[in-house]
């Protein structure tokens, strides 16, 4: 028997606060005349209530399992998860265009929500292996494969939003020693991408050349040694810029182009694709300091914001609770993320630490992309706000993800002995 040091009640408290406040807002967003009581299962908020109750059962189950189980069976869980994703191509049910669901009677399960936790376990297991050296290219490739496999299966469902989440695993990789160069390269490509869309490939090429010349000028002493490298980088950058141009205009579909153009401010469109963002901004903006009061939001009641109980739930918070509400939610998330980093850092086992950072990364990227989208500073990418958005799979996926870590943390002292 391993010794348990108790659960981190602060994380659990933050989790409960988010789930409870989320339900309160789902109630308001989905309230209609047919509603009968708080636990009417024919209503969206009633079902979410049921999901929450079931997630408590799930938590008790997760916390009562031996902590070693997660490490030992991580590969099995990962493989099962991959299979469940693959199975969608055969048995999947299509909901709003994406074949991401298994239907069980009245309920649907979205396996990609659970695949995140499975991938986190597999990555933690791989990186914590005594033989794995993150500095070696071979092992980098291995880790990369673990991460990219589920994402590759999810993309064609199509659910690019869920696939994007796998970028979150950069967090544990970086923490475990992956070169920051990858991040630099990644960021460079993202900037090149954005600038190309904004200013066109030709101006970006001019900019790249000027930048290279400027750096050369300020590093005159080393210039002979590195001049080839500058030329190569500039050439790659320009090539990338032109290919972005090509891909954007010839490979992307119009709807993808629209999403980028709207966020970059190149197009104003409040009726088509921009409608969601526009309406959600109106709803949030109309909240003021303290909002219009619970269930009193005019935009929420009028269903002006599409998908308001799922991806756009944050706009309900904005309208009905005002800046007080939105700031509270943002601060709750930041508190939870900080707490989890703190917990991850105090782990003695590498497995727990990698897993902890994976949890932080996944929650952070959801938080960043979802709220960023709702408040109009990110392109429209359909991913839920953890613990908050409506949906059983999502809630359970995040609950499992978080509580496995809380279980691992409670067991941190026992692990080495």
């Amino acid at each position, binding site marked *: 028997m391993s010794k348990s040091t108790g659960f981190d009640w602060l994380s659990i408290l933050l989790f409960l606060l988010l789930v409870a406040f989320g339900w309160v807002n789902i109630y308001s967003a989905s309230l209609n*005349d047919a509603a009968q009581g708080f636990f009417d299962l024919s209503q969206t908020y009633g079902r979410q209530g049921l999901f929450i109750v079931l997630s408590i059962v799930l938590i008790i189950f997760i916390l009562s399992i031996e902590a070693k189980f997660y490490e030992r069976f991580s590969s099995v869980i990962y493989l099962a998860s991959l299979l469940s994703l693959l199975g969608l191509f055969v048995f999947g049910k299509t909901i709003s265009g994406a074949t991401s669901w298994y239907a069980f009677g009245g309920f649907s399960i979205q396996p990609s929500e659970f695949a995140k936790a499975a991938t986190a376990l597999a990555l933690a297991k791989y990186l914590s292996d005594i033989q794995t050296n993150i500095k070696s290219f071979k092992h980098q490739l291995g880790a990369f494969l673990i991460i990219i496999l589920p994402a590759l299966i999810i993309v064609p469902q199509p659910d690019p939003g869920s696939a994007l989440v796998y970028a979150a695993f950069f*967090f544990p990789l*970086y*923490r475990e*020693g992956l070169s920051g160069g990858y991040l630099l390269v990644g960021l460079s490509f993202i900037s090149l991408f954005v600038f190309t869309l904004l200013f066109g490939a030709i101006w970006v090429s001019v900019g790249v050349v000027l930048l290279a010349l400027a750096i050369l000028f300020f590093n005159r002493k080393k210039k002979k040694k590195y001049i080839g490298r500058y030329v190569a980088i500039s050439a790659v950058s320009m090539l990338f810029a032109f290919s972005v141009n090509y891909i954007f205009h010839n490979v992307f579909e119009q709807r993808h182009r629209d999403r980028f153009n709207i966020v970059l401010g190149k197009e104003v469109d409040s009726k088509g694709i921009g409608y969601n963002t526009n*309406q959600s*901004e*109106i*709803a*949030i*903006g*109309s*909240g*003021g*300091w303290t909002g219009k009061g619970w269930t*009193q939001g*005019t*935009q929420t*009641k*009028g*269903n*002006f914001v*599409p998908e308001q109980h799922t991806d756009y739930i944050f706009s309900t918070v*904005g*309208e009905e609770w*005002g*800046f007080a509400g*939105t*700031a509270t939610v*943002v*601060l709750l998330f*930041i508190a939870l*993320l*900080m707490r989890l*980093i703190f917990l991850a*850092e105090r782990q003695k086992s590498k497995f727990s630490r990698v897993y902890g*950072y994976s949890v*932080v*990364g996944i929650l*952070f990227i959801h*938080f*960043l992309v979802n*709220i*960023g989208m709702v*408040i109009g*500073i990110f392109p429209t990418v359909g991913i839920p706000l953890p613990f908050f958005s409506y949906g059983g799979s999502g809630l359970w996926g995040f609950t499992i993800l978080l509580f496995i870590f809380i279980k691992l943390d409670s067991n941190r002292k026992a692990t080495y002995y």
Partner: protein
Amino acid sequence: MRRLLPFILIVLTGFVFLGRLFYMQIVDESSAILSQNNAIKIEYDYPQRGYIFDRNGELLVSNQPSYDVMAIPREVEPFDTLELSTLLNITPDKLGKRLDKAKIYSPRLPSVIVPQLTKEEYAYFQEKLRKYEGFYIQKRSSRDYQIDYASNVLGYISEANTSEINNNPYYQAGDLIGRQGVEKQYEDILRGTKGVKYIQKDRFNREIGSYKDGIYDTLPVKGKDISLTIDAELQAYGEKLMKNKWGGIVAIEPSSGEILSLVTAPSYDPDLLVGRKRSKNYTKLWYDSISRPLYDRSLQAMYPPGSPFKTMTALIALQENVIDTRERIDCHHGFSYGRSSRMGCHSHVSPLSMSPAIAHSCNAYFGKVYRRIIESYDSPQAGMNAWHDHLASFGLGNFLGNDLPVGQPGRIPDAAYYNKWYPDTRWQATYTLSNGIGQGEVATTPIQLANMTAAIANRGWFYTPHILKEVNGNPIKDKQYTVKNKTTIDAENFEPIIQGMHDVYNYGTAQFLQIPGVEICGKTGTAENYTKIDGKKTQLTDHSIFVAFAPKDNPKIAIAVFVENGYWGSRYGGRIASLMIEKYLKEEITRTDLEDWVMSHSLEEEYAKPYSGEPFKINQ
């Protein structure tokens, strides 16, 4: 460093989010307004405007339903333009223009496309309304005039303009607001309060019920009925007498300050400014820059008061003790003063004491008395100011404060006025002598003159003239109109002046205008006046002016009549005043020959003279 990066990323994201949210929710207010507009539809229920009665309870103005065709441009779907324009009886081109204008005003807010359909047009259009997405009918209450006169008193209502909408949150585009007369003055009383219904809409613009179960909804409150101080019959009679003449009549009940009639001529039928024809008719009236029917001469025209002003000179002289009632003053067809100035006068017995001087309207008497008043002070400035203050106590030289939205202050000069004219300040009483006989620099409006007459009739006090008598049957309580204004002249000083005014009828300038059985007091006036023709100052036929009150003791009516270019005081002014008083006191006219004379005589030829472009003769 490796531990720091996630930490920094998270904190940075937090700051960016909080900053953006702060901007959206607190700093930027455009969304708050936008949200009000797209999720909540506001429906208005317009109340009936209050009725207007005269002092005897006769209904003057009631309401009729009117139907405005409204459109919300954002919701308008493509439609059969030709059919709709035929239905609404306008050209397709005009319909398109109005819709464009509405879109510019606001795509989300309703605008009036065609105002005030008749019942027939409405009935026909209503059948087809459902075919036109985004159009609807707003029922309002428009005016139904029971009389075809008194338009200057009543005013009219029309759509609120942009600045009114911006300045007063009560009004929306298409709302009707009072203009001119009591409609404007008592807009807040007459208007009532419109009912509001807030309706929650969903994103398909469907109505999904009342917003917050209707806790903000209100029912319309009907406007209050008002009774005016006007005597409708007298008003109608006055307007009839003034036909084909320009000028004003103001009659006041001295004991209350209530305005019995307020006639301006020329005028117009109030019904011209109702319904779809309003704008066309208004333009026509507005562009008549010669006879100016929209200009209320009874309140706005500043004329030299002429001889009736001599009563003031007499009163001030008695109050200042510069003369007594027995002293007689010579007049030799006027008198000479200064080095080479002369004030002319007509033929009458001479010398005269005060009362006969009033009866005969002797210029020399009042010119000399005026000089004594000014010179009884150490400096002409001090004398001038004392004279001005006495007149100011009669409500002359400034706005009276009566409850009608237009007016003029008139002009009673004081020392500062002449100091501006003569910067060396070495001016004398003789410089301003014409003031003493109501010429020179003094100017009054007919209502000021009527009020002056009422103050004389009351022997030294008056109530500020007013047009509102009752609101919903309750007498007004406004202190402005229920507290006496005292003049600076002692009551006993009025008797000789009133006797003189009585003698005007007995043997003076209006002896042929006596009303059988009525003790009447009056004063004629004949005022020189000028206009500019091609930049040249040209004298026109004199104005005919008359003030009167009756009965002499316990007066019931005080009246001032101005007839532009009516030649001399008793010719038009005296006759009209006499008939008006008889009408009011005896309710029937016994002197039908006099009535016929006034009604059959026109001054239109006189008014055409300055515009004829040819030389013309005056005072004939």
